[in-house]
Structures are given as structure tokens and as C-alpha cells.
């Protein structure tokens, strides 16, 4: 089996417009969550989110492109551009044919759906823009990345709600590992912060009105965010031969299904995924120094996740660090695992563990080292990234320092 390394990373999210800005915000424990700004926000009960503020598509794309790109596609293209530029790769000939794109998203072009439903139902219009379908489809982002960078190999989109990005990156990892591709551009994107998007989540009664406080006893729900994270996964020998800078190595992946409940998480399902990722990586439990938690800030997720980690790691659970960066950027749903992988790579490369901010009160049901409020310097060799989706679909990645 081939080894898989990461040679490029890119992002746009509530913490920054680039990896450098995002990593700096994570080091400083900065919060990107604030008042939502969009039409009809006054009709929402939930008025906060991790929005990408001050973003003007016209500075990045021309009018024809904007007509075709939903906000989630725009975010993806910006993140992909940064990641591919860092990798130094140019795709042509045989390499183009052996390189693809696999991205996660949950809502796809939800803003496009929202705007156009409003126009036909509320405003009574009988005609919509001709590109509504190619703009809203879930695979639009993956397709546009393939077109922008000439990626002609396996390309598709994965939708597993909050685990979409991790499932996507797991596919990218395995495609390269088994020799089906040389390079995969992977990660995920989400942009659900519009009236219909937030209204739907409001209905479930799991959203916080004031802050995302993962693992804190006074946590009261999740906060949504938006943005994208994109990575270049590359076959190790290919990267080495061209002298590429290796950011980290992807060493394991596992996915499980709870087969139990459409919204309530399961300790067993989560634990099986965590254990599976380490078995796949072939590393002992003691090697894991940091886990980027799913850590949504809901009562149910955080205690279940901590119990799963305690179960898998036994005594070592008290020695490792586990933090949720959702406290800073919110829950990017289908894009969340990708943005959170930035914190994993920061831990491996820079020896800085991103904090769980907003932490106010210890919860005996979350009695692990959650790196409260301030980033910490620590040398770690192996890290995990957890994602546990609604529908009971779990995906965990394991990374090692380059």
C-alpha cells in the first residue's frame, strides 16, 4: 500500500481568509462567532453564527463566474487555490489523469435554493435564473475545482452531514493508498448561513443563542459556521521525488455507523471509529497526543464523545489533549472536519494545540484535558480528527508528523 502525505492546505472560514490567518487566530484563541448578517435575520430566534464577514465575491470572481458559483463553491475554489499553490503542483498529462477531487458538503448550494425558493414562493416570480440547478447541486464545488485545476481523475462529492469532510478525506486517502490516484484535492465546504438554513436548524432546538462552549458544564448547544478547508493529498514517493514540502502524513482512517438513532450519538459507534482509525494506522494508543474533537457544544455529543475517548484509551485518555475548535469557528457542518484538520496539522508542525475557548465550568461527564481557553505548546507525533454525524455516521482520521 502506498503512503499518503499532505502537501498543501487552504481555507476561508470565520477565523481567516488563509491558513496563516486561521492558524494565528487558533493560537490566540480568537472567536469568529458573532451576530449574523443577512436578510430576515430578525425573524430568527438564533441570531449568532460563525460567518465569513466582509467577504465580497466580486473581488475574487468575475460576473460570469458568480452567476455559476454558489457561496459554498466560491469558498471551495478560494481554499483549493491556496492549497494547490502551496503544493506547487501543476496538473497536466498523465498526472492530470491520475488526480481528482473529493469534497464533503451537506447543504451544497443551499443559499441558491433559499434565494430562489424565496423568489418563486414569496415574491411570486414565475421565472428563475437558468443556472439555478448547476449552482445548487452538491457536486458543483468539486466539479469547478476539477475545471479550474485540470483534475481529470476520480472526482465526486460526499454528503454525510457533519462528517462529510472526514468521509471525503478518508476516500481521498484510500484512493491514493490503493493506487487509484496520485494526487487528490480534498476537504469540504459549507455555507448554510441564510434565513432558511438557520431556520431549519432552529427547529431542532439544539442551537445556542449565545456561544459555543464545548465540554463546559454550562454549554447550551451548537453554533453554525461557514467556510471551506481544502488539502492536497499526494502519494508519498511522488511528493518526495519532486522535493515537495510535506506538511503531515495521513496514516489511518475508519468509518462506522451507529445503526441506532437519527440524531442521538452512540458511544459505541464513536469508539469503534476511533479504535478503527488507530488500528488502520498501526499505532499504539499511547502514541496519540492530541484529538481534534467533534465537540459540538451540545449536551449529547460532548459527553458521549468523552465517554468514547475514555473507553478507547483507558488510562491514556487522561494524558492526551482533546480540544474543539468549533468554539472559535462554529460548526461548519459538511466542511467542519476540513477546517479542523488545520488545527491537527498545526499541532504536528508547530507544536501548538488549539484551545477550546468559552470554557467556563468543569463537567464531570467531560473530565478530559480539553485545553481550556488558551493554546498550549506541546510536541505531538500522532493526532486524530473526530467527526460524528447526524444519522450515526462516524469518520475518524489519523495523522502523523512528517
Amino acid at each position, binding site marked *: 500500500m502506498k503512503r499518503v502525505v499532505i502537501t498543501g492546505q487552504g481555507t476561508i472560514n470565520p477565523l481567516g481568509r488563509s491558513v496563516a490567518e486561521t492558524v494565528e487566530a487558533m493560537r490566540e484563541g480568537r472567536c469568529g462567532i458573532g451576530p449574523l448578517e443577512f436578510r430576515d435575520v430578525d425573524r430568527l430566534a438564533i441570531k449568532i453564527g460563525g460567518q465569513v464577514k466582509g467577504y465580497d465575491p466580486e473581488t475574487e470572481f468575475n460576473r460570469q463566474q458568480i452567476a455559476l458559483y454558489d457561496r459554498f463553491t466560491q469558498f471551495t475554489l478560494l481554499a483549493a487555490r491556496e492549497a494547490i499553490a502551496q503544493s506547487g503542483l501543476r496538473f497536466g498529462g498523465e498526472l492530470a489523469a491520475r488526480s481528482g477531487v473529493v469534497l464533503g458538503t451537506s447543504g451544497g448550494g443551499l443559499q441558491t435554493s433559499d434565494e430562489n425558493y424565496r423568489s418563486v414562493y414569496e415574491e411570486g416570480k414565475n421565472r428563475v435564473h437558468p443556472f439555478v440547478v448547476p449552482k445548487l447541486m452538491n457536486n458543483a464545488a468539486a466539479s469547478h475545482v476539477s475545471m479550474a485545476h485540470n483534475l481529470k481523475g476520480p472526482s465526486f462529492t460526499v454528503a454525510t452531514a457533519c462528517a462529510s469532510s472526514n468521509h471525503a478525506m478518508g476516500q481521498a486517502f484510500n484512493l491514493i493508498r490503493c493506487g487509484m490516484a496520485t494526487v487528490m484535492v480534498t476537504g469540504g465546504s459549507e455555507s448554510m448561513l441564510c434565513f432558511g438554513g438557520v431556520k431549519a436548524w432552529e427547529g*431542532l*432546538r439544539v442551537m*445556542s443563542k449565545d456561544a459555543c462552549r464545548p465540554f463546559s458544564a454550562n454549554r*447550551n448547544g451548537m453554533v453554525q459556521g461557514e467556510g471551506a478547508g481544502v488539502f492536497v493529498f499526494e502519494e508519498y514517493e511522488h511528493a518526495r521525488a519532486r522535493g515537495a514540502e510535506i506538511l503531515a502524513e495521513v496514516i489511518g482512517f475508519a468509518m462506522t455507523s451507529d445503526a441506532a438513532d437519527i*440524531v442521538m450519538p452512540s458511544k459505541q459507534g464513536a469508539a469503534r471509529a476511533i479504535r478503527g482509525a488507530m488500528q488502520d494506522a498501526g499505532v499504539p494508543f499511547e502514541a496519540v497526543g492530541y484529538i481534534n474533537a467533534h465537540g459540538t457544544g451540545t449536551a*449529547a455529543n460532548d459527553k458521549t464523545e468523552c465517554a468514547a475517548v475514555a473507553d478507547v484509551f483507558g488510562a491514556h485518555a487522561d494524558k492526551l489533549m482533546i480540544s474543539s475548535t468549533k468554539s472559535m469557528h462554529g460548526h461548519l457542518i459538511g466542511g467542519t472536519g476540513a477546517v479542523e484538520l488545520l488545527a491537527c496539522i498545526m499541532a504536528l508542525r508547530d507544536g501548538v494545540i488549539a484551545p477550546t475557548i468559552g470554557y467556563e465550568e468543569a463537567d464531570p461527564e467531560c473530565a478530559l484535558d480539553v485545553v481550556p481557553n488558551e493554546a498550549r505548546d506541546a510536541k505531538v507525533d500522532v493526532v486524530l480528527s473526530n467527526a460524528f454525524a447526524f444519522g450515526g455516521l462516524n469518520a475518524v482520521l489519523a495523522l502523523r508528523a512528517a
Partner: protein
Amino acid sequence: MSDVADKVIGIIAEQAVLDKGDVSMDQTLDDLGIDSLGLVESIFAIEEAFDIQIPFNANDPAASEFDISSVAAIVKAVEGLVAEQHA
């Protein structure tokens, strides 16, 4: 029985897939086999039926201002919210 009680019991009975006559005031949602999703659905149905806002956060149902400890408690809480709305 008040109109409010009658409507609330109707909503709870529908959620529990029971006849209205089989729901009694002292029962809990647990007794009726209504889980967390069923509870959120019931609250939505009650809000729609009475055009009220129920303060409820599924992260910690016990800490919400809205008492859901029994059918009687829910009826009382809804009566309070309906009265407030007409005040």
C-alpha cells in the same frame, strides 16, 4: 377540562400513537413512550396550535423554563403561555 388541556392532550396522544382517553394528567412523557425527537415534535405542534413561543432547549430539557415533567405540567405551562399571549 379546559380547551387548552384538550388540545395539548390531543397533540401528546397523537405523538404517542394513543387514544386521547388513554393519556392521563399524571403520566410522564417517558410513560407515554415519547423520546427526545417526539418531545421536540410535540413542542412544535403545540406552538403551531396556539401560536405561542415555548422556551425550550433540547440540550437540557430539565433546565428550560418550560416544565415537561408530566402531562399536567405541560398543560399548565401552555395555559400560562396562552394567558400571557392574551394579556
